[in-house]
């Protein structure tokens, strides 16, 4: 098979797609032409169908049993479903797109599927790894790579197929700041070698704008705006920012600084060592205080044990060494050691919001989800209903009260898990990456809510985060963990 490596042209003619499980179309009436070698940033509010369009172009939407298509979607004039191999797609979640156990084999996978002769495959693998700047041995275990390296691996895997069109679906949304820069630089380096047509979907514009020469905005009714980045952002910037896109010059609002100084220490760690599982210590020598009416931000690069420290302070993981002590006021009758509290005793004392909402969702409806904590406390029915009502309203979830939590969007799920933790009014709230992958609108809402909790309830907040904007917006005290500590 001869492989066509010229940059591809893309054309959509009144294209639309409806998932078979939904009544509404994911997107409709998209008409658009992208010339060979153009670099396009695709924008739109969350739920506008950006990913659907990319999946359609990559030919991975599936057949008639997955959904219904209308109009035409063409790559170099042939239907996208028949153009596999001409199109490379890199997705958001680094863990879900590593296919094989070794780096070299993973990059070779696409070439094998396209029937590239064996001797040529390994040449292409070397070239692709070089192009993305991933300088590791071919037999390095893929699971030992960092998030940013995994995304570069996925990029190399696509690149080795020599695609004429490269599609990036929020490739940096799940990465820490270093990983974001790493991946962006890789894409830039790669484009210097191979002039593929590029379409990127991303919420964080500042990172990608320097690479881009055209912005397309999609939404209700197809393409809403299309043109040079400057012109589109000038006209559509404000509307996009309102829809949750991180537009330069339109930063989300920060809440006011706390009015009063931090109160007493509710939880304190002394000489603490933390371990995720017994015997695998990730950090030690930790001394830190969690104070009422203030926010403690735990920061540092991936893999230094930030989440593990958060879970240990939350009374969920036992300290590997040293002490986590609760104040008299917090512990009360339950004693001074959070890890020895019962699950129920924990509810009114320390709440935890996990990074993955799916890990902590328990109920069949949003309302039931909010009622689980209060019910476990044995509160009277009237009180349970009142608390759920109040939270539904406050977090704009009232419309969704009867929806299944699993069907909510990412931002809605995040709001729900925070609300569920607040339902039992804990004095301390530990949040693991609360703003991870959230759009600007959800970000602003979450930050405002956490500030209110800090000031109005005098709660102590612990945020495990690598989002430095959150640290600034909440006037948090920073506890930085390093690979050396």
């Amino acid at each position, binding site marked *: *098979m001869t492989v066509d490596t010229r940059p591809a042209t893309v054309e959509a003619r009144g294209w639309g797609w409806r998932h078979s499980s939904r009544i509404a179309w994911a997107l409709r009436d998209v008409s658009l032409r992208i010339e060979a070698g153009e670099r396009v940033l695709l924008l739109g509010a969350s739920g506008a169908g950006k990913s659907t369009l990319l*999946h359609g172009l*990559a*030919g*991975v939407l599936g057949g008639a049993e997955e959904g219904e298509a209308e109009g035409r979607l063409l790559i170099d004039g042939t239907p996208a479903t028949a153009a*596999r*191999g001409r*199109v*490379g*797609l890199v*997705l958001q*979640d680094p*863990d*879900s*797109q590593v*296919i*094989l*156990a*070794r780096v*070299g*084999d993973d990059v070779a*996978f*696409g070439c*094998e*599927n*396209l*029937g*590239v002769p*064996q001797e040529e*495959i390994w040449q292409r*693998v070397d070239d692709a790894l070089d192009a993305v700047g991933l300088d590791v041995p071919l*037999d390095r275990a*893929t*699971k030992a790579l960092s998030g940013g390296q995994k995304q570069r691996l*996925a990029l190399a*895997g*696509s690149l080795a*197929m020599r695609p004429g069109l490269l599609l990036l679906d929020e490739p940096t949304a799940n990465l820490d700041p270093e990983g974001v820069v790493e991946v962006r630089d890789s894409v830039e380096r790669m484009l210097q070698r191979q002039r593929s047509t590029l379409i990127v979907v991303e919420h964080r514009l500042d990172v990608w704008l320097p690479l881009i020469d055209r912005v397309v905005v999609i939404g209700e009714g197809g393409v809403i705006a299309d043109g040079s980045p400057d012109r589109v952002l000038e006209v559509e910037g404000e509307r996009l920012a309102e829809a949750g896109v991180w537009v330069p010059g339109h930063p989300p609002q920060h809440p006011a600084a706390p009015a009063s100084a931090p109160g007493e220490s509710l939880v304190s760690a002394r000489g603490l060592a933390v371990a*995720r599982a017994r015997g695998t210590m990730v950090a030690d020598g930790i001394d830190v205080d969690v104070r009422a009416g203030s926010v403690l931000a735990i920061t540092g690069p991936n893999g230094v044990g930030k989440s593990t420290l958060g879970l240990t302070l939350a009374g*969920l*993981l036992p300290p590997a060494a040293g002490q986590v002590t609760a104040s008299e006021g917090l512990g009360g009758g339950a004693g001074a050691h959070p890890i020895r509290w*019962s*699950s*129920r005793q*924990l509810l009114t004392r320390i709440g*935890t919001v*996990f990074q*993955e909402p*799916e*890990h*902590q*969702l*328990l109920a069949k409806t949003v309302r039931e989800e909010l009622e*689980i*904590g209060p019910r*476990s*406390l044995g509160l009277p029915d009237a009180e349970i209903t009142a608390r759920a009502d109040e939270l539904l309203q406050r977090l704009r979830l009232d419309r969704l009260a009867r929806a299944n939590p699993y069907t909510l969007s990412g931002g809605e799920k995040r709001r729900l898990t925070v609300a*569920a*933790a607040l339902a*039992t009014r804990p004095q301390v709230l530990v949040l693991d990456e609360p703003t991870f992958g959230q759009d600007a609108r959800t970000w602003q809402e979450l930050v405002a809510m956490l500030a209110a909790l800090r000031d109005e309830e005098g709660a102590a907040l612990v945020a495990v985060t690598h989002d430095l904007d959150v640290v600034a917006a909440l006037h948090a005290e920073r506890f930085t963990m390093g690979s050396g500590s």
Partner: protein
Amino acid sequence: MTLLESRARTGGMARINPVAKLGASGLIALPLIFTLDMVSAAVALALECVLFVFAGVGWREFWVRTWPVWLAAPLTGVTIALYGQSGGTVYAEWLLVRISEGSLLLAGATMLRVLAIALPSVVLFITVDPTDLADGLAQTWRLPARFVLGALAGLRMVGLFIDDWHALQLARRARGVADRGRVRRFLGMAFALLVLSIRRGAKLSTAMEARGLGSPVRRTWARPARFGTAEWMLLLIGAAISAAAIAAAVWAGTWNFILGPS
């Protein structure tokens, strides 16, 4: 995760096509499944011990990987000694327990049999890398590539499931529901894990399709699986052990074919 983790290694055994290892284990096990006597198992086990020396597996590792077998074999033996079919002199009797000459012989034979079947399988498979096995199954045995590669990629996700399970446990404690109802909670977590794994699986399959899996072109293989002299030699060794075990048992008159007339 001693069962799943596998390191690529450089010894002579590591480079042999895993399909041949599968075949050799099968050849060794075959006659031992069809007879129940002490001699065949003992001979097979003795010959295997010679094989282990050349397998390139260190002693420490040998014990670490095989200890469950060493534990399971005597347990099976004891059970059969106590409850197995009795015959000959009866040494002790208590309720259902009856230790006799026959049950002791049977126990010994079973114990040796468990060792003789399980040990070579474990030793041969320590040196198998899952990727090589998939290559072998798809190329040597011509199993459908889609199926083999899907299973291989899925295997890699097991590590993620273990992390998920741990997080699910912690989250239940945080939500105030971990004090009671252990069974119900377990079922709930199992369901949540199922949902999570289906989602991960769907994403993984999209990623695989985006890399051209299932395209109409004939697939090539970056790592060709050979089936050469070394592979045939290993099969031959397996067959030889098998034959020696049968011959010894027939010669000693202990051979009892379980499917044959008794």
